[in-house]
């Protein structure tokens, strides 16, 4: 079912974890001014898994950066649990596309990093880290350094590190984009079981439509030039979802049709 993001105002809704309203973002270079986001609004409810898909340049990562507080130069309003976002905070931890692990720390110390910053006592830290490492199946690699890990293991470690600080919303910026197809399938399945257990709110940016349908409760389709939300598609499928499930393939085809529609509008614009 295809729903646009115009919801009736009168409808009683719980307060969203994240409320982005009327966000516009310009990138200025000396030669020109690019509108990366054009009046984008998005609300994310607690324990929701929202995927954002769109072609390169649609502003999906920019939107995530604003939600994370890494980017504070924009127009519009970004509220996190009712208060304006003014900077980065552990309540909105990020998993990056590149393995952003600290190379001088082993896996355990990386996962422990955020807890150490908060001054969590040592024995508590150990218990939390053990739990996180087990969750992402890295319990036997806790002494390894990052250059000894495979791409998939690095992303698992990043996930464990972000989850360890107990974020209220986890922001994932194309975390599997650099992985091979098989590892990617594995991690998609694992991610489902992880979030079935802990129920954290997640915003997951990807350019892979099938991935978005497998993981998301909702799929936000964005269009480029300027970046806008084209439509939001609900994914009412039971979990775990497998990449070859008929329902997944079917829904992915519909999301893709939406995206193709996006491409056509882009072509139409360039044809003028």
């Amino acid at each position, binding site marked *: 079912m295809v729903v646009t993001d115009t919801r009736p105002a009168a409808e009683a809704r719980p307060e969203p974890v994240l409320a982005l309203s009327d966000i516009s973002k310009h990138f200025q270079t000396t030669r020109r001014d690019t509108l990366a986001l054009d009046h984008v609004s998005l609300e994310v409810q607690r324990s929701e898994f929202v995927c954002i898909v769109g072609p390169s340049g649609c502003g999906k990562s920019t939107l995530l950066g604003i939600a994370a507080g890494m980017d504070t130069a924009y127009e519009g309003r970004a509220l996190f649990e009712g208060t304006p976002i003014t900077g980065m905070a552990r309540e909105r931890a*990020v998993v990056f596309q590149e393995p*952003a692990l600290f*190379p*001088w720390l082993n896996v355990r110390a990386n996962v422990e*990093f955020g807890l150490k910053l908060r001054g969590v006592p040592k024995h508590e830290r150990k218990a939390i880290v053990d739990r996180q490492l087990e969750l992402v199946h890295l319990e036997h690699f806790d002494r390894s350094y*990052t*250059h*000894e890990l495979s791409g998939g293991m690095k992303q698992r470690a990043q996930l464990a590190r*972000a989850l360890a*600080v107990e974020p209220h919303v986890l922001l994932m910026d194309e975390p599997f984009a650099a992985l091979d197809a098989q590892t990617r399938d594995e991690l998609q399945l694992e991610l489902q079981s992880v979030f079935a257990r802990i129920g954290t709110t997640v915003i997951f940016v990807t350019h892979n439509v099938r991935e978005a349908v497998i993981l998301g409760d909702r799929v936000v389709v964005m269009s480029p030039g300027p970046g806008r939300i084209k439509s939001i598609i609900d994914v009412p499928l039971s979990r775990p979802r497998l990449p070859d499930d008929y329902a997944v393939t079917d829904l992915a085809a519909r999301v893709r049709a939406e995206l193709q529609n996006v491409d056509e509008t882009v072509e139409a614009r360039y044809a003028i």
Partner: protein
Amino acid sequence: MRSKALRLGAFYLVVLGGWQLIATSGLWSSYLFPAPTSVVASLVRNVENGMIFAALGQSLWRLALGYAISMLLGLSLGVLNGSVRWADETIGGICLGLQSLPSITWLPMAVLWFGLSDAAIIFVVLMGSTFSIAISARSGIRGLPPLLARAAGTLGASRFQLYRYVIIPAMVPAMVQGMKQGWSFAWRSLMAGELLFVTIGLGHLLDVGRNLNDINMVFAVMLVIVVVGVVIDRVLFGTAEAWVRERWGYVAT
């Protein structure tokens, strides 16, 4: 491993044998070109009479003191230049300029300031290594991938914690490289300073050898200087570099 040791042993045996042959052939007088056997004899004599160890101790003490101060200064300057843009544009430029100045050229000024004292030599050592340490520290900070700073920020790091837990550890590979370079500058300036200067030390002992017309002693002291250099370079910095390689997976260049 074993064959490498054999190869090296054979190589040095050939070098020493060739040296001994040339020296005993009478091609040059023995007071200009000593035989290895007489160099070793001189070394043993000067070790026994305590000259070598007294000089070595004095030189190493000056080196340690000068190097420690230059580490402190270099690191502070480097962190300042790496973190504050206007400092880099102003002080950073001066660091780059002074780094290209051969450190022994500080000696005349140091003698005028401090007189013929240890302080003058330590000052020269200091000027020799401070700027290269500062430049490495600065590039270590500038080389921090912005991604790691962002990762720390989204995990809740404050500005102070960013320095303490990310920026300082991230600069270690560049620092080890800079400290190694700084040490070699310090060691060279120390020897040059002691040579031009009447006070106990390995450099001065070389000059004593020259004054006594004792080529054996000159060679023996040079040998000691080589050994000290190699030991510090290989053992101290070799270990540090191996540690960096294991931890970081690479050594900064």
